């Protein structure tokens, strides 16, 4: 019996070794770099980094930004969540997709759009000359908070909306029948029931904001607002290069994130109610008067205009403007920038090729590795499975930039043994590490929809393990694997922070190409690439959706 157990655990053991090498070693390397000097434990450089007033200021900045973004995204999302869960607006399913657009738009592209729109003599001031001076209001902490909240509010919206949908109407109706008016019901029933889910959403938004690099590196830099991610990036790329400081700041950031995750875990177990009851759970729409309906439509359209309209208008119109000096004027439009990307601009074409290559390879490797991981974890009964699963999901809990720093440090260290650093190989590897959790999650969730008895039935009717895997398991989880592949492809295609840190010299991908053109080349060419990037990933997403819907119908 023992013998067979060992045999069954062998694949799991192998996976554990691979994952430790790929994920745990780099993370460990960060901590080691932070507190080890020449092979000895030495905390003084770390302490020095932390005591540096500039860094203390930066940490304050990051936390302040996190709190403000949580507040503003709540303000934006809460009314929408109520509208789209408890009123007739819930029937307009198309908004589910529309509100995901800001979240699916790469943050660096959205912030470039905002910069082009709001800057001095920018698009807004060309359209409305009276808006002159608006840049003084926008290029501040307030503007940064606005742009980041507009990116992240769909996430808060989804969390809150699902929480509201899960509150059975009868709980509110009971409040009404027993004498509580609308505001009393809100105060005493609705909001207390939401508080747990809201706290979880707020913590996730906070962690996301702290981990975000795209917006702080484009908009934040313009206003001199330094945060964790930009400082870690600066220490690792700008001379004098100081990996020690990068590692110390990364460790602090990881510490903060882990605290938030633990807090989230605590709230989930303590403060969430088992609300979905099977029998008689019905949802009743809150009725709305004419005035309320008009106000609700106005608010919905306004949010979409600001969150989607502004950045997309800016990016698309800039990509079509011939001479930026003339601005938005008849006759000053051209598609030359797009043509240029495919003809004379070799860098653009090679960046596109690189991104497609990276996205396809990393998505494929993730699909294989992630599926193997889930299969091995589900097969085994040893304690190791929890560990393997946790490691597989770890990259999602850590800020991307921290993992990339860890990978840089680790692979630099073992360059003599495995000379992967400074090649495309290290990029593929970093992408795989970063995006592995997508496959793991999608495949796991497709497994939860399959009853174990289906596999048992396969065994009873004489299927060998391989036959069962091929004929039963794989067809049933195929959709989970495909979804994971597509998500990885989309995210990898536009990934910025990894590429900007770890790409070999003179190798550009779509994101770094856009940033470079935006900062020191032709803004219009950069924006043309941005439009292509968004179009490309949106098409991929639409294909994915159609495939899933198509499957559901059958």
């Amino acid at each position, binding site marked *: 019996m023992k013998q067979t157990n060992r045999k069954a655990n062998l694949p799991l053991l192998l996976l554990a070794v691979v994952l430790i090498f790929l994920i745990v070693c780099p993370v460990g390397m960060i901590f080691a770099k932070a507190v080890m000097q020449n092979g000895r434990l030495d905390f003084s450089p770390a302490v020095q980094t932390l005591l540096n007033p500039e860094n203390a200021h930066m940490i304050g900045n990051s936390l302040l930004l996190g709190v403000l973004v949580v507040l503003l995204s709540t303000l934006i999302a809460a009314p929408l969540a109520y509208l789209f869960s408890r009123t007739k607006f819930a029937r307009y399913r198309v908004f589910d997709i529309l509100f995901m657009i800001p979240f699916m738009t790469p943050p660096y592209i959205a912030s470039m759009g905002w910069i082009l729109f709001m800057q001095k003599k920018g698009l807004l001031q060309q359209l409305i000359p009276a808006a002159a001076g608006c840049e003084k209001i926008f290029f501040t902490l307030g503007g940064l908070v606005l742009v980041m909240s507009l990116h992240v509010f769909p996430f808060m919206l989804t969390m809150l909306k699902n929480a509201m949908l899960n509150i059975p109407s009868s709980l509110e109706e*009971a409040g009404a029948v*027993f004498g509580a008016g609308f505001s009393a019901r809100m105060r005493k029933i609705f909001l207390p029931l939401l508080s747990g889910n809201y706290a979880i959403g707020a913590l996730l938004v906070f962690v996301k904001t702290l981990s975000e690099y795209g917006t702080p590196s484009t908009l934040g830099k313009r206003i001199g607002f330094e945060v964790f991610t930009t400082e870690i990036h600066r220490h690792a790329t700008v001379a004098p290069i100081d990996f020690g400081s990068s590692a110390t700041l990364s460790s602090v950031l990881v510490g903060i994130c882990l605290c938030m995750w633990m807090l989230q875990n605590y709230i989930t177990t303590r403060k969430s109610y088992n609300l979905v009851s099977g029998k008689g759970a019905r949802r009743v729409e809150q009725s709305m008067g004419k005035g309320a309906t008009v106000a609700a439509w106005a608010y919905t359209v306004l949010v979409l205009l600001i969150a989607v309209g502004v950045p997309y208008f800016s990016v698309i119109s800039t990509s079509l403007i011939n001479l930026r000096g003339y601005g938005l004027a008849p006759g000053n439009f051209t598609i030359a920038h797009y043509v240029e990307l495919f003809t004379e601009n070799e860098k653009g074409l090679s960046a596109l090729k690189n991104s497609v290559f990276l996205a396809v390879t990393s998505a494929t490797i993730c699909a294989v590795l992630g599926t193997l991981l889930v299969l091995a974890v589900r097969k085994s009964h040893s304690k190791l499975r929890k560990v393997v699963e946790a490691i597989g999901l770890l990259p999602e809990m850590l800020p991307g930039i921290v993992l990339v720093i860890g990978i840089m440090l680790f692979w630099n260290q073992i360059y003599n043994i495995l000379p992967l650093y400074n090649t495309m190989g290290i990029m593929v590897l970093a992408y795989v590490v970063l995006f592995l959790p997508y496959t793991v999650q999608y495949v796991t969730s497709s497994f939860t929809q399959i009853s174990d008895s289906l596999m048992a039935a396969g065994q009873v009717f004489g299927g060998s393990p391989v036959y069962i895997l091929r004929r039963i398991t794989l067809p049933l989880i195929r959709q989970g694997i495909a979804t994971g592949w597509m998500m990885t492809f989309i995210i990898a295609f536009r990934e910025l922070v990894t590429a900007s840190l770890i790409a070999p010299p003179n190798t550009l991908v779509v994101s770094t190409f856009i940033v470079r053109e935006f900062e020191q080349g032709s803004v219009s060419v950069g924006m043309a690439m941005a439009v292509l990037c968004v179009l490309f990933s949106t098409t991929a997403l639409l294909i994915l959706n159609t495939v899933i819907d198509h499957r559901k119908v059958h």
Partner: protein
Amino acid sequence: MEIKLVHVTKSFGAKQVIQPTSFVIQSGSLTTLLGPSGCGKTTLLRMIAGLETPDSGEIWFENRCVFSSEKKINIPPEKRGLGFVFQDFALWPHMTVFENVAFGLRAAGKTDKLDEKVKNALHAVQLDDFAQRYPHQLSGGQQQRVAFARAIVIEPACILFDEPLSALDALLREEMRSELRTLITKLGITGVFVTHDQIEAMSMSDAIAVCHAGKIEQYDTPEKIYSHPATEFVARFVGSSNWLDQNHLFRPEQAQTVPTEQAEKYDADVTAVQFLGSSYQLQLNHNGQDWTYISPRRVSVGEKISLYLPRSAIVAV
């Protein structure tokens, strides 16, 4: 409190779920709305509570009009002063049992002697020691009692019950049935009860309104509904019925296997037999009609059996 519905109608989209309906619920009685799912019984109850707005008609509580489409009156549920026991109990999971029960009193600002009133209500449902528990720490039957205590503590003129026993298992359901009935009688409350379970309706109610396809088919005492069903639907839905022809039926227990005076004889073939413990349930075939009959002794399949039926037991619908 007497509740009066006058020509009430309601449609969801194109589907009219309540045909024009008028009826009066007597003060101090327990009235049951009985019918299959989708018949409109729950919609009627929710309209009385104010949770659903009728398209037309009027609803009166004694001399107080709480809804009128013509006079544009629609008192919201929080101003109607009713008690309500929900199908899923609808206990607030973030409040203790005490706070759940106290909710209605606090909402109305009746905090005078609040402690005492809540304790009395919990005592009435035998949950004296559970005041500080949370709903998820209670069993299904206890949750049901809390829901009831929450309804009686505000001393409403009427309590509405929306299939309150359907979330309980069979044994508990039977226990709660008699417990509820005893409490309602003791407290002298007017009650409106919705259920699809005919035994529940029969055993608890003073009057039953049988609903079908958005209409009330018959409104009468349980005994009358059983012995004199007014329509074919009522006859088929309540109790088991053996049909003599298209319009005539009898209840199985009215027939006997021995001849009596003024009884007509009917022959039938036994097609199936089930042992029920105390008796045998027979499936019979009489001229192509399927009948059932409860027999004290075993009969074999294929045997012929004669049933004797007094003429007075034949019901015409």
